[in-house]
């Protein structure tokens, strides 16, 4: 989907500062959120791709508002509500009660975890199909703008590059995030020049990205 998460090439964010003394978790709630975020996938009966899509579905202000772990927290809550593990508003109501406010908590709802078949643990799969493309081949990235989850960023779409490696086949995030199947595909590393992506005035560099077979067409 075209959302705030798809940041490659966006402008106006300012500079980046490295804090050499940064702890692993700078606040306790970051640590609790990290652990709960990891657990939320199993508890909601979803998966890593659905987790990433849940991040993307947040309102842009929720995505950015409280940083990385702020979005993890909203994402985990959303997955748990989607699966009926928690009622909508349950977290907010409990938080207000912890804060001393006299609010009613919503009644539990019926659990409805997604039903889908996994072909195994993790994301990598052995597939029988012959790879459609070869190392060294020129390809063009798809221009399709999906409404759902995809791992083809906007700044790559429609551009031509060269395949530099065939990687292990993997489940297609576009399908697994929506529980419609695994649709495992070959994955290729494709290299693009900065001039191709950003125009002739761009700083000279190249960019390598991993693309699923269905994200590309031959040139």
């Amino acid at each position, binding site marked *: 989907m075209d959302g705030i998460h798809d*940041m490659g*090439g966006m402008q106006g964010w300012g500079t*980046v500062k490295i804090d050499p003394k940064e702890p692993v978790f700078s606040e306790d709630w970051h640590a609790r959120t990290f652990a709960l975020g990891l657990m939320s996938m199993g508890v909601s009966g979803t998966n890593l791709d659905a987790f*990433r899509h849940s991040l993307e579905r947040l309102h842009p202000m929720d995505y950015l508002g409280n940083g990385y772990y702020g979005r993890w927290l909203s994402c985990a809550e959303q997955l748990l509500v989607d699966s009926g593990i928690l009622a909508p508003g*349950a*977290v907010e109501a409990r938080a207000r009660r912890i804060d001393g406010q006299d609010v009613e908590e919503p009644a539990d709802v019926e659990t409805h975890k997604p039903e889908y078949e996994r072909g195994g643990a993790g994301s*990598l799969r052995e597939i029988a199909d012959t790879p459609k493309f070869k190392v060294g081949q020129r390809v063009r990235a798809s221009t399709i703008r999906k409404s759902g989850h995809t791992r083809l960023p906007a700044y790559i779409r429609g551009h031509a590059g060269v395949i530099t490696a065939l990687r292990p086949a993997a489940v297609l995030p576009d399908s697994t995030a929506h529980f419609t199947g695994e649709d495992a595909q070959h994955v290729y590393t494709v290299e693009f020049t900065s001039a191709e992506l950003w125009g002739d005035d761009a700083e000279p560099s190249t960019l390598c990205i991993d693309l*699923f077979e269905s994200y590309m067409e031959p040139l």
Partner: protein
Amino acid sequence: MTDHPHPDDYPSPQLRVEALEALLVERELVKTEMLDGFISRYVNDVGPMNGAKVVAKAWVDPEFRKRLLENGVEACKELGFGGPQGEHIVVVENTPEQHNVVVCTLCSCYPWPLLGLPPDWYKDPAYRARIVREPRKLLGEMGLDLPEKTKIRVWDSSAENRYFILPSRPENTDGLSEEELALLVSRDAMVGVAVVKA
């Protein structure tokens, strides 16, 4: 500008995470000790010291270096490193001619088994947005001025391959042991936003 999706008095993340944990513990869907275990693992056991051991070994052992560049997953397993976000580790080598740097523009994918959890700068929208478009300029702002003749290649971790940089070994380190070398290797050099200095 879009309005905030929540009222002004929406509970803070601190309160909401406490609420979320309480609701899941009450329903016996998570155990507090399990959460503590995850946190402790990434605070104490999994971090850049793992990646630094891999780099130091590759610097002193040419056969390991070869295996590491050919099959990152198997070579890292030799040192006991693997697990979540390390299903397929790909190691790329930085040289004076070719510099490599890693990003995840779509979220913040990172090789957890070797580097632990990503630092703030890696998750910063400015890093995710700019490193693919003006890497030399941004690296300069982050303190790494690369010579003009050094080519730059950026790796956007968009699938489940996790990229790990094998930095160049600094000069004048011939007398150092593998353990001493590992202490020189910074997290930032293993992502490609710094070089290792003796």
